[in-house]
């Protein structure tokens, strides 16, 4: 089995599924559903087998499949996986079957499924690409299915939202493409080798410092829009709110991760020094996003919009984790990507279920649902608490790691970011109070409990929410070697030195005194309590 092209299959299987769905007659929804499920579940199976084969101890890329493609331009078809991408890929393969089979689709199910599968192929492609050109290709192609999903199956202002999403993202992509090309050609100028190969480019580090900064900013523009980082976030509430439930799940669960993943894979890896230099900027924006997203979420009147703004806040944590440049922060960031996919995905599913039942997302029109549907309310509560970051559930682990790691390296940002924890409780609990608590009145007195199908859809998510909160070790252990390698890479190519305490190389117990007295050497913003 060692030679089996898992990664290629992961991209190809959904794409083939999409093609298969496309040839199914329009009115055979059950066939479409079967084909869609089979394709997406097949990808899931491949993903799981891949995880089993995955060597958790390696920090480098594995299962690399490499094919020449456009030799004139040094472009190759290179896929590979490491500890950062492996769980994002798995998250994708998990969420897509859910998005395909879960929500009720009211029109043109065939088109919906076909676009979904195509989207899956694109997303997984982004996570797996080790060639900048290939990456960009997948990065861009993702827009199209999502555009059609929002525009074709969304709510009232879907056209506006879809267009905004597409154009907003494209602005970033445009800059990134230029960035990629600048990087590649400057690399050629310096080394004489024209290549889009990520590993080669990252290893050579031939860019001048200022240039690297600009090129990084070009990349960052694209990632920042996708994440989205304040103040580039305004496409997100619209897109989330107007997208169909499945679309929102994928949008929040996977698509936003493309941005943060991009920062990790292409930002840190390719431009270590630039990232180190610009970290304060992005940390600030991330922190602002945490606070701002939460504050704005508090007063939202639309439940879906509220969840959307909560995403802004959550993604802010991930950004902080990434730019904190600490082992814990990075591990937490990666974990938090998965977590956010699970819990926000679940939240969107639940909001979708509410909409199915009540045909409204307006918080003011809901109320007292816990009385009528206690189990539903319980599930919502669990997911909500995960989103708030209650210890024991997945959300906490990621958030905590991000904060504790970043605290060591960038103290004051973390202090503000931690305050976001308070705000999260405010908007979530207040929303829960208004939607589920109180006395049910009017149309709210009739509210169906969860059906078996809904259980089937939400149960895996709940399972992971609890599991990752209690026992995140298997995941963290597989992320760690890669994160370590990444941090070493950054250190090697910049003047940044990760504090020993993050690294854990020094025996913490005996060295505690020295650090306590003198502050942690080398860390930015340090000076323990002096």
């Amino acid at each position, binding site marked *: 089995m060692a030679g089996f092209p898992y990664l290629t299959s992961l991209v190809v299987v959904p794409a083939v599924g999409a093609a298969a769905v496309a040839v199914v007659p329009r009115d055979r929804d059950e066939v479409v559903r079967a084909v869609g499920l089979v394709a997406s579940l097949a990808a899931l199976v491949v993903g799981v087998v891949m995880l089993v084969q995955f060597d958790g101890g390696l920090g480098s890329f594995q299962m690399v499949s490499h094919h020449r493609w456009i030799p004139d331009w040094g472009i190759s078809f290179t896929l590979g996986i490491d500890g950062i991408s492996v769980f994002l890929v798995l998250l994708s393969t998990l969420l897509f079957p859910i998005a395909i089979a879960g929500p009720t689709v009211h029109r043109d199910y065939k088109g919906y499924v076909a676009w979904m599968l195509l989207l899956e192929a694109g997303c997984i492609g982004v996570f797996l690409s080790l060639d900048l050109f290939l990456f960009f*290709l997948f990065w861009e192609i993702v*827009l199209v299915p999502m555009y*059609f999903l929002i525009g074709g199956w969304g709510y009232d202002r*879907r056209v506006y939202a879809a*267009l905004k999403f*597409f*154009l907003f993202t*494209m602005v970033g992509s445009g800059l990134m*493409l230029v960035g990629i*090309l600048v990087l590649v050609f400057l690399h050629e100028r310096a080394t004489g080798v024209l290549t889009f190969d990520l590993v080669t480019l990252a290893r050579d580090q031939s860019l001048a410092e200022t240039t690297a900064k600009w090129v990084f900013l070009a990349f960052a523009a694209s990632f920042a829009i996708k994440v989205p980082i304040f103040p580039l976030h305004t496409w997100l509430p619209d897109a989330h709110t107007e997208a169909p439930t499945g679309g929102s799940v994928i949008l929040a669960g996977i698509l936003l991760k493309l941005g943060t993943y991009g920062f990790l894979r292409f930002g840190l890896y390719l431009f270590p020094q630039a990232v180190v230099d610009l970290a304060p900027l992005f940390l600030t924006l991330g922190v602002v996003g945490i606070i701002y997203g939460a504050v704005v979420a508090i007063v939202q009147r639309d439940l879906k919009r509220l969840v959307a703004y909560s995403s802004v806040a959550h993604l802010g944590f991930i950004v902080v984790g990434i730019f904190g440049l600490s082992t814990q922060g990075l591990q937490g960031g990666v974990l938090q990507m998965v977590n956010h996919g699970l819990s926000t995905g679940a939240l969107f599913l639940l909001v979708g279920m509410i909409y199915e039942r009540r045909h409204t997302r307006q918080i003011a029109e809901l109320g007292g649902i816990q009385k009528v549907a206690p189990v539903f309310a319980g599930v919502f509560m669990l997911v909500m608490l995960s989103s708030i970051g209650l210890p024991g559930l997945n959300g906490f682990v990621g958030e905590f790691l991000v904060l504790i790691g970043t605290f060591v390296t960038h103290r004051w940002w973390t202090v503000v970011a931690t305050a976001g924890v308070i705000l999260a409780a405010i908007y979530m609990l207040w929303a829960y109070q208004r939607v589920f608590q109180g006395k049910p009145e009017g149309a709210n007195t009739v509210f169906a409990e969860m059906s078996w199908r809904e259980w089937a859809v939400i149960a895996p998510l709940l399972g992971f929410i609890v599991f990752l909160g209690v026992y995140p070790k298997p995941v963290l252990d597989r992320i760690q070697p890669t994160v370590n390698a990444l941090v070493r890479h950054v250190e090697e190519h910049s003047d940044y030195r990760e504090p020993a305490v993050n690294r854990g190389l020094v025996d913490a117990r005996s060295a505690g005194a020295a650090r306590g007295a003198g502050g942690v050497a080398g860390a930015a913003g340090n000076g323990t309590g002096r």
Partner: protein
Amino acid sequence: MPPLIETPSIDYANFAPELILVVGALLLLTGGTFLRRRRVGSAYAIFTVLTAVAALVSTAFLWHRVSGGHGHAVLGVADAIVVDGYSVFFAVVICTAVVLGALLSDDYLRREGLEGPEFYVLMLLSASGGLLMAAANDLIVVFLGLEILSIALYVMAGYHRRRAQSQEAAIKYFVLGAFSSAFFLYGVALTYGATGSTNLGAIATFLRANTLTEGVFLGGMAFLLVGLGFKVAAVPFHMWTPDVYQGSPTPVTGFMAAAAKAAGFAALLRIFFSTFATNRLDWQPIVWALAVLSLVVGSTLAVVQTDVKRMLAYSSITHAGYVLIGLQAATDRGIAGSLFYLLAYTFMVVGSFAVVTLVGRRGDDSHDLESYRGLARTSPGLALTFTVFLLAQAGVPFTAGFLAKFYVIGAVVESRSYALAIIGMMAAVVATFFYLRVIVVMYMGGDPAAGDAEPA
């Protein structure tokens, strides 16, 4: 007795595609006289297509000749033409445009009651002019090719006798075309004066030996750029484009957009990149400006259009901007990018206008965005096809349009014109907006309740 004048030996194979087109046109013309007023069905169109295909086949041989064992370019007819990969490439592009255009025209002409061989004759001849431009190794041959191409197109633009728009397109195209031809010609004259020859090879040799900074030469270059810029519809010489594209019979528009632009660029690239290579620093800033203007003006104006045909016209201006980007890079990669762009563009634009022709219905009038509302429901195949063409034009990955943009932008980045690259990408965003707008109307405009939610 030796002849009074030693005419150069001619290897007709060297311009076989041109010859095939011209001979085909003449045959069609003669044959058409006999078939007149009878039921000919699609015979004219089929014949035209066959001719173009024959020309394409001949390009394959030429290709073999220039890329095979014996190196590259072959000069022919007293160095007046050059057969190289470049000219063969454009021959392929233009002949393809003929094939597609002819296929498109057949139904259209019968629908509009405009049957007759003349249309195809003009198309074939026009194409031969385009080929001549691409293969020309002499400015005057370029000029003649240009005129052959254009004059036929003037007539074709006004071919729809009952449409006032068609007539207006013809007169506008003609007046401005003649005007710009004069500029081009004046450019030829000045270049001739400055270099002593109209032969591109001779000019290049001369320029390599002498550094020319005189205004005469540079002015000649500028005038050449005006004339060719007009042909390829680069801003500010673009203003005829929307009117003519919109007014002309739609198949003509498709053919015109593909062939005329390709031919124009063929000449532009050859003259500037190959011949004026030594003076690159003089013309690069100009091309830069033209490219930026084309990108910005084309995409901005396309945004506010409600007529799909006209929108596509503006988008073709934007596309011209992209091809100019490749030229601005002035590297092999840039030119390769431009060529690829043109090839991709040919298919995209002809395809798009094919859809427009079909949607246009009798009278060639239904080009308003409203005519596309709900197209995905009434004719899903057509809508899907159009979507693919539009997305390709927008440069969405896994389409030729993406690769094309990638190549030109890549080239210009390589030559370090970063600003141009960024402007190019931003124009692509704006362009995407109006392509998506059409898609929105086709797919999401089905139910009137939600269709109106157009973004700002």
